[in-house]
């Protein structure tokens, strides 16, 4: 499997008045195509900052981030914006969908943005939404959907333009346990079937049961990387 994402000693420091805060401290990691990774850690561990840097939304203070060999730090803001549009898929914790666009239009937005909303594109959007069980809600607005349905639309939008990597920020934060499991399982299946690289930031360790690798952060540093299936299962269900 080819490596899609590779970071080398990535750090991010903030200056708050006279204090220097290291939000991320020399984190090196890699994610391969078809690999679904969970980035976990308690609040303030630096996982969201790390995700922002992986998305090119934030520049690292030190270190390098490469997606399919392209260094993000060396890109201009406009080039990074184009890169995000084409190569990265996103789902967010909140404000995930455009409230005034229907389910169909929300997913089509990424194709329209990339100049690929042709007849085939429209059919792919429908097919993907049907796969995600949203065929009865194609023309509904986000406000007419449940939290789980909204997250599934966000997943469809994140995947529709065949990005190199998909980044998900706490996709299950507002869902009940059953729906959370459904969403993450769907996510994992699509990432595996489409051979994409996927990173999910979550504070809910139970959600790691569907991932291939767990990257645990603490105080901005990489605490451990778990790749063994049995260990991941233990990590996801510590009480069992």
């Amino acid at each position, binding site marked *: 499997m080819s490596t899609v994402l590779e970071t080398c000693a990535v750090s991010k420091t903030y200056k708050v008045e006279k204090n220097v805060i290291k939000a991320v401290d020399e984190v090196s990691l890699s994610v391969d195509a078809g690999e679904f990774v969970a980035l976990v850690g308690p609040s303030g561990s630096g996982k969201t900052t790390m995700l922002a840097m992986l998305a090119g939304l934030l520049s690292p203070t030190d270190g390098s981030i490469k997606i399919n060999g392209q260094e993000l730090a060396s890109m201009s803001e406009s080039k990074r914006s184009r890169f995000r549009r084409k190569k990265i898929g996103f789902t967010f914790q909140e404000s995930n969908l455009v409230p005034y666009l229907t389910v169909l239009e929300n997913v089509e937005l990424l194709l329209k943005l*990339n*100049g690929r909303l042709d007849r085939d594109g429209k059919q792919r959007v429908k097919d993907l939404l049907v796969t995600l069980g949203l065929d009865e809600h194609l023309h509904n607005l986000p406000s007419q959907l449940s939290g789980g349905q909204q997250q599934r639309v966000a997943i469809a939008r994140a995947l529709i333009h065949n990005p190199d990597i998909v980044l998900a920020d706490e996709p299950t934060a507002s869902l009940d346990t059953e729906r959370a499991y459904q969403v993450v399982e769907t996510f994992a299946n699509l990432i595996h079937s489409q051979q994409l690289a996927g990173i999910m930031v979550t504070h809910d360790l139970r959600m790691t049961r569907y991932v291939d690798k767990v990257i645990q952060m603490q105080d901005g540093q990489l605490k451990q990387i778990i790749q063994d299936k049995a260990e991941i299962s233990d990590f996801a269900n510590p009480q069992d």
Partner: protein
Amino acid sequence: MFIERSLPRALNLDLNFGKLSSPLFLHLAWKELWRNKSRYFLISLVVALITTLVLFIAGLAEGLGLGNREYLQKLNADLILYQEGVDLSIPSSRLDHGKLNDVWRIPGVKAVGSLGFSNAALVFGEGQEPLDISLIGVDPGKPGEPPAVEGRQLSGKRDKEAIIGRNVALQTGLKVGDNFTLKSIQGAQEEFFTLQVAGISDGRQYSLQPSVFVPHLTWDRIKPKAAEPGDDASDLIFNTIAVALDDPADWPVMAAMLEERVSDVEAIDRQTAYESTPGYQAQQSTLNTQRIFTLLIGVLVIGGFFQIQTLQKVAQIGMLKAIGVPSLAIILAFIVQIVAITILGVAIGSVGTLLLSLSFPVTIPIVFTPQSNVAAISSLLIIGPLGGLVSLRILLKVEPLTALGLAS
């Protein structure tokens, strides 16, 4: 070239739309407007109300201004002569026939006519309100007599006939050939004079009253007098002299020449004359101030609405930027929305004003001219985008990091 390259960089704009994304801003703008049509329609109605207010103030300013200046503005003369030292006040100015003859002798003067201004009232039968009018004495066939659009011009200096302004005809129903009665105060007595309508002119209001034009000697006989009439006919006094020139463009030189060669007179052009009418400037500046403040209120209302809208959408805008929607597309979508809302509001307001004005009686001095309407509508169309400038700044400042809850 410098602006093309450096401005987008300075504003942190991504100008690369991609192959098919150029209509993206229209797509986003339209969908948001359509799916929130009630909310946006409400703000359009606010714009419509502001439009109505601005157009009515403009119409009122035009109507009142016209009521004051219409006769002088349309006067078929290039210069108006006043008595010197009366501060260009028509009622205070007193000129006699000697001055008229002096002016007539000046080379370059084409024609002269005396103008006498006073007030009177048209009276009708029982139960009908009298109509206050400006009674203007003119020399038949000379500058100052308005052209009759119906009927004929005045014929003799002493004839008991009149040309009535269009407003008099509209308000009284008088037609050419009809007789009417004028009431005038002579000393302490009310006296009544019967005149015949020789012709009807276009609108020629003066001093906010409709006008009736009579031959000069008739005017001298009818005009209100403080005491018993004496031998006025032999010593005819009037207020001003209307002067038509051989070369109207030469009026500044001719004005100077007239002031030099005719003693105790002041010569001015028509515009200066009506702008010097008592209260004219104060009235116009008051109404213009009202209009400007209404427009400012419009800027604040529209600006406030869109600012609240934008602040409510910060997270959504951050998300759009994070997924790669260019800032320029977001800004253009916003501009399209604000322009569309403003245009809709101004259109509703303009049509509403037009319909409302049709129900107004002719006595209300509201006049809608193409110039004043275009000026008012243009300024109204500018207030929307102007009000949106603050929101535009917010849009530019939203960072894509907001989507992850990380922006400062």
